[in-house]
């Protein structure tokens, strides 16, 4: 080998010289590259920098993604992920090694948002955030509904419209927050917590109108998921359109496809109860009316009440007629009464003269049949026949109950 160098007359490089050359070549040649590979040995350092390797079957490439570059990456770097890394090569002379400084990462075969969503969903799933037995029932009869949303958004407008239309009796308390952009995650979480701490809020609606996955992203965060989970009252999530599913939707006690649907869900219980009450009230009254009508028909059929009522009405009618004619009648009645009394007196005197009254005054009575014939033997009467018994004073109308041939 040395012979060769002597022949060619080449001067040796110092290590530093060579390394600087390599560094120049590598860093200029690979200043802006994309590399696809599988992540391995992924580590997040306390500094916030990510260290990992990209590899395929035959080679390994050490990589670093500094904090300022990885803070905008939504998904977590995990071993086994196939990714495309963007960045540049960098040589580190003290160790004689090179690595890739990664400025951007993109998953392969899946969108980065979807990947981030999946990763958080898996984590929360493991922690039991979505367990069906954790879900609480939405109160049927809420007094006050808390609404977590933007105070200037279409979601709030839709919710208030729906509640006004469907259930005017429920009160609403809006807990305003930003729903996208810087600080929105913290604001949403705090808006939920404030309502949860209020005593008379029975259910919370977390809502946002439709938008891209980026727009809805704040509802796909762990902080918001934890706020929903720790809420002391049931939470209904109505974020985005029908097709958008967020982490917030999955953690909530109930998921509504839209903000309007969330309001419908809250109003539904009361509306159903109102309908039920209305139905029962009408049924109560119609059943009682039916029952009374039935009883009236039975009474009319089974008792003489009806004829009694008619009789009483006839009496009343007669009385009115009598009253109207009383003036003219009075004098004539008086005269007739006087005449009758006179007749009665004279008849009595005649009767007394005849004798039987003397017998009657001793307790005997005379029985007469309807034709005024006097009864002397049981054979002259039949059971049920009506007789007249003349007493010392007055007379009785009597009916034969039974007949006995002997005393």
């Amino acid at each position, binding site marked *: 080998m040395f012979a060769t160098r002597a022949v060619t007359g080449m001067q040796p490089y110092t290590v530093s010289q060579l390394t600087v050359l390599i560094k120049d070549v590598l860093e200029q040649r690979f200043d802006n590259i994309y590399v696809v590979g599988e992540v391995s040995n992924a580590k997040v350092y306390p500094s916030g920098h990510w260290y990992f390797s990209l590899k395929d079957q035959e080679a390994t490439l050490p990589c670093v993604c500094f904090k300022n570059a990885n803070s905008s990456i939504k998904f977590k770097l995990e071993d086994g992920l196939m990714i495309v890394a963007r960045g540049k090569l960098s040589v580190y002379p003290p160790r004689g090694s090179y690595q890739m400084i990664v400025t951007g990462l993109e998953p392969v075969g899946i969108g980065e948002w979807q990947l981030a969503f999946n990763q958080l969903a898996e984590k929360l799933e493991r922690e039991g955030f979505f367990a069906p037995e954790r879900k609480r029932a939405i*109160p*049927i009869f809420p007094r006050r509904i808390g609404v977590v*949303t933007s105070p*200037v958004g279409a979601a709030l*407008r839709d919710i208030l419209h729906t509640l006004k239309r469907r259930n*005017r009796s*429920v009160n609403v308390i809006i807990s305003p927050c930003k729903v996208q952009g810087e600080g929105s995650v913290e604001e949403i979480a705090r808006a939920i917590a404030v309502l949860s701490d209020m005593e008379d809020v*029975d259910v919370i609606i977390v809502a946002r109108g439709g938008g891209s996955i980026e727009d809805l992203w704040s509802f796909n965060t762990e902080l918001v998921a934890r706020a929903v989970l720790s809420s002391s009252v049931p939470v209904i999530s109505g974020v985005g359109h029908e097709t958008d599913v967020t982490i917030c939707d999955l953690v909530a006690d109930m998921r509504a496809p839209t903000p309007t649907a969330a309001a419908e869900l809250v109003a539904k219980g009361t509306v159903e109860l109102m309908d039920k009450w209305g139905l029962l009230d009408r049924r109560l009254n119609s059943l*009682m009316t039916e029952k009374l009508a039935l009883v009236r028909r039975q009474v009319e059929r089974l008792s003489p009440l009806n004829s009694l009522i008619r009789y009483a009405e006839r009496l009343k009618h007669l009385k009115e007629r009598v009253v109207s004619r009383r003036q003219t009648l009075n004098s004539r009645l008086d005269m007739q009464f006087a005449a009758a009394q006179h007749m009665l007196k004279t008849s009595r005197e005649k009767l007394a003269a005849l004798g039987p009254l003397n017998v009657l005054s001793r307790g005997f009575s005379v029985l007469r049949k309807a034709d005024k014939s006097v009864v002397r033997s049981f054979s002259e009467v039949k059971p049920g026949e009506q007789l007249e018994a003349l007493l010392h004073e007055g007379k009785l109308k009597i009916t034969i109950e039974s007949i006995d041939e002997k005393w």
Partner: protein
Amino acid sequence: MTKTIDFETSLKELEQVVSELDGEIKLERALSLFERGMELSTQLESFLKVAEQKVEILRRQADGTYTTELFDDKNLEAAGDQ
């Protein structure tokens, strides 16, 4: 929550009253059921016909506490998609 429970209990009892009234029962029983039913129905109505809906909004104060004020929804008609 007590209000919800009261309401549901009353509604359930009214349901029972109506279903018993629907059967073959004596007039006296029917009258006392009807009376109870009317009582329950009036009670339920008073639950349902509460005051006009109130919409309020929370405002965070400088000291971190919250106050509520009535919400004016006039500006919402032109609301954006958020």
